[in-house]
């Protein structure tokens, strides 16, 4: 509906044009870029603040307690109270620490996780940087962030931090591969590495009401599942929060951090989560596309936001439920399960692509084969992975 766009949809464009009209031509590029950065920082900064609150609230509700509710109405001011507390706390640098790396780690982490926001299309007209190889840029920025985790773990000169650094490295090496492999099918189908092109390719509806999102195909669903699992691991969220495994390593790489540096780590974790969630929405959930045609009047960025929030809620939900894996199980899960599954998924998507021209009559067969290509390896490898584990029956002593 490009000809009849509601003004809400065009609101950001109108705003930018209004600002541009006031400025001389040479300054426009700079001002535009600055505006983009400021808006991204503002929106995601606020999202971060309220996400911490939402996480604590949801976690609390799941655990049958109300969560923070004292600061402000229902606790809405809690993030700001936390921020003030963090800012006013003493910043402790251990005497034996490597001061340069100790300082650089949180800064680098936040910088890298902020960089990845640049290429996500938040709406039809909301994209900071339309890059030809935007997806690659996104993962390049994300991959670098683990370096900062290593720096944090190593610089503290704390044994727990050191173990956490080792774990972070092992985890990154293991999960980078499935993460990259899981989005290759999307690239294969849409034929582009540009996020906006990928979103556009998911427009339209099957049979008039089923959205053509990637997640609603067999390979797309498998890719989405692998992507979500790997992004849980990439953003160090439970059940893959091994680097900061509280029950073993106290706080892992954060053990020697306090005050605002600690808050920066926290911020980077949430930024990373938001960025990966946003990328998952872009790649698999149709980006800013509305799920139904008649809902098109709602601006596209609202749809993006809703999908992103749903994914983030899922992250929180998983965190509230699942226990943590052990490091060897974590790497085994990546290498023996996710990577083969992602490779098989490439075959599936190849089949899907080649069979795209099958006539209507064979469509169910195409679906059946694709689903079988996804499900059978999943079941088989899942069985091998969990061999020897399972519920047990117990005997009772003779009376």
């Amino acid at each position: 509906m490009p000809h009849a766009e509601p003004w809400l949809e065009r609101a950001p464009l109108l705003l930018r044009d209004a600002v541009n009209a006031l400025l001389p031509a040479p300054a426009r590029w700079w001002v535009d870029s600055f505006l983009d950065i400021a808006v991204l920082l503002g929106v995601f900064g606020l999202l971060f603040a309220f996400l911490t609150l939402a996480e604590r609230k949801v976690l609390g509700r799941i655990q049958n307690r109300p969560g923070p509710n004292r600061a402000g109405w229902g606790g809405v001011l809690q993030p700001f109270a936390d921020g003030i507390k963090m800012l006013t706390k003493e910043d402790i640098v251990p005497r034996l620490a490597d001061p340069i790396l100790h300082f650089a780690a949180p800064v680098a982490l936040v910088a890298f996780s902020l960089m990845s926001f640049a290429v996500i299309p938040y709406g039809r007209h909301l994209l900071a940087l339309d890059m030809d190889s935007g997806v690659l840029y996104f993962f390049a920025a994300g991959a670098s962030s683990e370096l900062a985790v290593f720096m944090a773990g190593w610089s503290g000169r704390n044994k727990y931090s050191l173990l956490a650094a080792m774990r972070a490295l092992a985890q990154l090496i293991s999960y980078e591969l499935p993460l990259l492999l899981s989005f290759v099918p999307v690239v294969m189908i849409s034929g582009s590495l540009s996020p906006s092109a990928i979103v556009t390719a998911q427009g339209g509806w099957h049979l008039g009401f089923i959205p053509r999102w990637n997640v609603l195909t067999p390979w797309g669903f498998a890719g989405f599942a692998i992507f979500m699992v790997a992004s849980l691991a990439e953003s160090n969220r439970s059940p893959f929060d091994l680097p900061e495994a509280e029950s073993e390593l106290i706080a892992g790489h954060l053990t020697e951090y306090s005050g605002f540096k600690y808050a920066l780590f926290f911020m980077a974790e949430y930024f990373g989560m938001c960025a990966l969630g946003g990328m998952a929405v872009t790649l698999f959930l149709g980006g800013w596309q509305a799920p139904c045609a008649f809902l098109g009047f709602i601006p596209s960025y609202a749809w993006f936001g809703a999908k992103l929030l749903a994914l983030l809620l899922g992250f929180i939900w998983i965190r509230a439920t699942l226990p943590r894996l052990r490091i060897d199980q974590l790497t085994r899960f990546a290498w023996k399960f996710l990577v083969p599954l992602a490779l098989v998924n490439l075959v599936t998507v190849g089949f899907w692509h080649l069979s795209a021209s099958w006539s209507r009559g064979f469509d169910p067969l195409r679906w059946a084969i694709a689903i079988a290509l996804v499900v059978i390896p999943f079941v088989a490898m899942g069985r091998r992975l969990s061999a020897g584990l399972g519920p047990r029956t117990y005997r009772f002593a003779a009376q």
Partner: protein
Amino acid sequence: MIEASTDALLPSPGSRVRPVRDPFHGDLLEVSMGPHHPSTHGVFRMVATLDGETIVRLKPVFGYLHRNHEKLGESTTYLASMPYTDRLDYLCSMTNNWAYALAVERLIGQPVPERAEYVRVILAELTRLLNHTCLAGFLLQDCGASGTPLMYAFREREKILDLFESLSGSRMMCNYQRFGGCRVDPGAHWLAAASRVTEGYGRFLDEFEALLTGNEIMMARTQGVGPLSAKLAVAAGVTGPMLRAAGVAYDIRKVDGYGIYPRFNFRVPLGEHGDTYDRYMLRILEMRESIPILRQALAEIPAGPIMDPKARLRGLRPKAGESYGRIEGPKGEIGFYLVSDGTPNPYRYRVRPPSLINLTILEDLCLGRTIADAVIILGSVDIVLGEVDR
């Protein structure tokens, strides 16, 4: 790495980072877990020597909570030790009370009225529910489950603590049993409330098991981790669910038949592998077995006095002699050994703490496992530092 760099770069004699030289494993990392560590269940300390993340040596260090419990028991009267037994294993004060009362009753030959026996069984089984629920919550917390199972466990525990509070006046430091009975009579109201809690507990257990027992991560974390052989368990004197998880049928409720336990019909579950999962499941199964005991006791409890009318509260001067009173506490055999020399104070007062004795095999279970396993193995041993250190 740290040790090497401190040697070279930072000549700090105050540094507590010490390299461990071991000709067979290269240079190892020695990590002092505790006494202040999120998962050592109090002020317990494990000095773990790590090769990578694998434990090659583990030295449990305890005594940070030593309070001279036994010596205090010898310098006060028999009655005055009763509130101190609450503080041994502060999750199971009712069973501690019972074991101590049993020891003293045996020493002075004091009978206990029927109603009090029933009340004791009810309280002991409630304590078992409480303790095992807490253990399951803590164990899953150690596995990294963000506190959710722990909060559910505490939600249920609260109901039992409320029962204890309305009966004895205190939630954890009950100080309820007396020599020859119990202090307060539970009225019909209390028994009805206990009945409600009992009936609701099965539902809670179902939900709790749905939450994590069938969970693949939980099974991967616990199955095959820290197996305890029956031989080692018997040799080390391990008792309680840990021993039964190793497959040894030994339950003092059946063996001694103290109190009125022979009247109850219950089964003793046994494990097969003796690993952490078995230890966890044994506790769940024992809770399920406790519910019928409670039901039967609540249904059959007779009217009558709660204290033996001839029982004396103070001024006890038992004849010279000795006695040992033991019961099947939630953590294992909790026993009190008393020697009297005819004075108002015991000549010898000795506790057999199940936590401490079960803890002695910690290193055997942890060797060759990772540091993450050590945490959950410790969690599955079920210790309370108040009892370990006394």
